[in-house]
């Protein structure tokens, strides 16, 4: 109806152009804006959006559930391969070395905290996965992204946004060489 009315108006003062097209009757270029077809968010539309959001949330947690299933279906403890990291003499007391464990994609830090003491953590920050580094002066593990700090002996977060401790890597020292033997589970 709206459309027909519009047409009539254009036909009224029809002037044919050179190339045989009909110009629009009005000169403010609003002929293609139709008030009745404007999108608006009414109550029902809003409810539909919320239902859609619920669907998106449901689907987005599926992969997490699936990964958790996979972890649970593995029987017994997770098996880790032993991996040689460094010779103890190559790391000075108070220094750190980077390595990867258990896979190439998990970077980790080994810190020699004393003559005989070494600790190692996976160094993806537990806040948003930035790499954490060892600050020798502060004797802390520091995340530069949002100033997260971790205790070096336990891996517990001490300041900043991280809430979860860094996953600790278990080590053994055999004849002056440090080996990674596994990743500690969180106690629950």
């Amino acid at each position, binding site marked *: 109806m709206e459309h027909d009315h519009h047409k009539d108006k254009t036909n009224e003062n029809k002037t044919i152009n050179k190339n045989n097209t009909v110009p629009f009757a009005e000169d403010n270029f609003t002929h293609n804006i139709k008030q009745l077809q404007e999108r608006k968010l009414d109550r*029902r539309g809003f*409810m539909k959006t919320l239902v859609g959001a619920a669907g998106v949330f449901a689907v987005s947690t599926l992969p997490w559930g699936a990964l958790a299933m996979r972890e649970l279906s593995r029987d017994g403890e997770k098996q880790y391969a032993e991996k040689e990291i460094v010779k103890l003499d190559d790391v000075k007391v108070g220094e750190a070395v980077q390595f990867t464990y258990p896979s190439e994609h998990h970077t980790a830090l080994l810190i020699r905290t004393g003559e005989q003491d070494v600790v190692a953590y996976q160094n993806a920050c537990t806040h948003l996965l930035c790499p954490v580094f060892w600050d020798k002066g502060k004797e802390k593990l520091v995340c530069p992204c949002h100033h997260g700090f971790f205790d070096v002996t336990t891996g517990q977060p001490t300041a900043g946004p991280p809430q979860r401790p860094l996953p600790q890597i278990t080590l053994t020292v055999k004849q002056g060489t440090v080996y990674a033997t596994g990743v500690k589970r969180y106690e629950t």
Partner: protein
Amino acid sequence: MKRSYYGVLCLCFVLLLNIFFTQKAIHAFYYQNYDATIIFAILNLVLFPAAVIIYQREKKV
């Protein structure tokens, strides 16, 4: 006719629960609480049909 905004309120609450369960599921996953992750993922799944039912009940009022 006066509209009922009851459905809007309920669906907003569903959205709140969605956010809550998603957050919980992912945290539980990183804490290696795999059972909890699955429970929260299922709760999140159940909320979707619930939202559809609320919509169907409330769209006409």
